């Protein structure tokens, strides 16, 4: 079975009319498996949206290959099976949510007979039943986002691209949308989320890749990326003697008001450090494995460190 998304050596350069060139995506390799929620991270200008547009066939790669559901990006048959929610979507303001959904349903050539039922279901699903017939210009950002998600679900897509789906939303809308995404995964759909809301990805994402300057800086399963071998040892009443005793084993240690905090890159020398603490006058407070937040990972990655 083909992967949901397969990107090989994708490079996208924009030509500046004045002669310069901007490389938005640089030799990117990326694979998204079916059924996963894939987090696509990166600072502004990293090339996330460019990559998504290439995958949708809105932009054309300079070099490299992009396959979506096993077919070249932009293939009309593929488009029947995918969906896309752009960042801060807008629709025709004079229309109501229902009319917008009818419009997109017509683009999918969904027959008139089933159209109303489908749209009603979707409106209920995104919690818009009550406001369904108001014109969009009266909608809040969250409501627009819900309409956006509803239009993305019209065709029961196998693969959904969400570009910053939660940015600027109130907490309730935010939570609702996260839940919706998880529901999609439960239904077996593949979700490709680009987001700044790192905590969302951490909470819902299966795998994540971080794009920096158009290059893939890091990629992996969320759990693996966030779990490290780093250990943290904390002791009270420590003195300089202890510090010199353990110095050879730890990556970093400091004493602040008698409390010692020491980091170990691996657990290899943990025994030796703990022994040294126990042998000293100090009291061992805690020994913990250290887990990174995605945010720290992101910042580290972007800054080029780990």
């Amino acid at each position: 079975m083909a992967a949901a998304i397969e990107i090989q050596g994708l490079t996208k350069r924009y030509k500046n009319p004045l002669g310069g060139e901007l490389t938005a995506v640089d030799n990117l390799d990326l694979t998204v498996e079916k059924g996963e929620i894939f987090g696509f991270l990166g600072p502004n200008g990293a090339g996330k949206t460019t990559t998504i547009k290439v995958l949708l066939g809105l932009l054309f790669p300079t070099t490299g290959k992009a396959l979506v559901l096993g077919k070249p990006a932009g293939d009309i048959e593929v488009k029947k099976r995918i969906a896309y929610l752009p960042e801060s979507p807008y629709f025709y303001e004079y229309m109501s949510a229902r009319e917008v959904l009818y419009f997109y349903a017509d683009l999918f050539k969904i027959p008139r007979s089933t159209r109303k039922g489908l749209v009603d279901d979707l409106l209920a699903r995104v919690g818009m039943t009550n406001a369904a017939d108001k014109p969009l210009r009266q909608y809040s950002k969250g409501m627009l986002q819900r309409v956006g998600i509803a239009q993305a679900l019209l065709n029961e897509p196998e693969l959904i691209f969400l570009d910053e789906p939660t940015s600027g939303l109130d907490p309730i809308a935010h939570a609702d949308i996260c839940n919706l995404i998880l529901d999609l995964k439960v239904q077996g759909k593949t979700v490709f989320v680009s987001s700044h809301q790192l905590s969302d990805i951490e909470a819902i994402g299966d795998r994540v890749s971080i794009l920096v300057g158009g290059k893939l800086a890091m990629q992996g399963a969320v759990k693996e990326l966030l779990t490290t071998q780093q250990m943290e040892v904390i002791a009270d009443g420590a003195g300089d003697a202890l510090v010199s005793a353990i110095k050879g084993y730890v990556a970093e240690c400091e004493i602040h008001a008698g409390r010692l905090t020491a980091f170990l890159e691996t657990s290899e020398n943990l025994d030796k450090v703990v022994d040294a603490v126990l042998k000293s006058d100090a009291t061992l407070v805690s020994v913990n494995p250290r887990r990174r937040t995605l945010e720290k990972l992101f910042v580290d990655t972007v800054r080029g460190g780990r």
Partner: protein
Amino acid sequence: MAIWTIARTTVGEAMRKKVLNICLIVAIAMIVISLSFTQFSFKQDMTIVKSLGLFVILLAGFVISLLMCVSLIPNEVERRTIYTILAKPVNRYEFVVGKFLGGLLTLAINIGIMGAVFVLMVTLKAAFGTDVQSTAGGVGVAVEAAARKVQAFDPQLVLGVVMIYFQFVVLSAVVMLFSVFLTPTVNFFASAGVYIVGSAAGIWKSMYVSGSEANPVVKGFYMLVSNVLPNFDRFNIQNKLIHPVQEFRGGPMEYVGLTVLYAVLYSLVVMIAAVIVFERKEV
């Protein structure tokens, strides 16, 4: 059908554009106001009502088609609606053609409304004009005046409005082509330029036909301009409408029919170019 869906939405949106609504309202007001020019003799009244009315429709049609069509595609990009639409199983050509047809429908509605008001006003004026001049040299004036009230409706006026519409079909196609690769502001001036130069096609043609221009490069340029640019000139039949006594050579239907055919063919060529360019357009 995706084309029709997009066209319909385009009409719905364009008909709600304030700036276009204002154009329409001002135009209608001017057509009605032109009725009040009564200080001249009857025939000159009619000349001014017809001339001004057709001109107002022409001008409003020009502004509407230009303002509307320059932003049809760029607006979709700016609002990002184009992304959701093209992410759906919609061919790019369907999008362009749908937008174009939507624009044409909007234009048809606008020009149709203005045209209806215009024909109505002229008919009323012809039927109830106070000072009716006779062509029959004073004989049977009363009979003629009575007949005139019945025959006041001149179906050729409708042809005039149709011709105005079709020249903006051509212009809209040109604007659509330009909008695929030019910004709206540049497009506005480029298309307006094409319209103005194309409206003077007769001059360019006479420049190289008459042989008054000796320089072959300049002559070739005139030839190119008059043959490649759309010839908006020939859509203007206001003189014929102002003076119904003038005949169309080969009859009005032949002239109008050929000109409409010209408009359709020209728009077809331009739209094929637009479709081909848009196919590789990065949005």
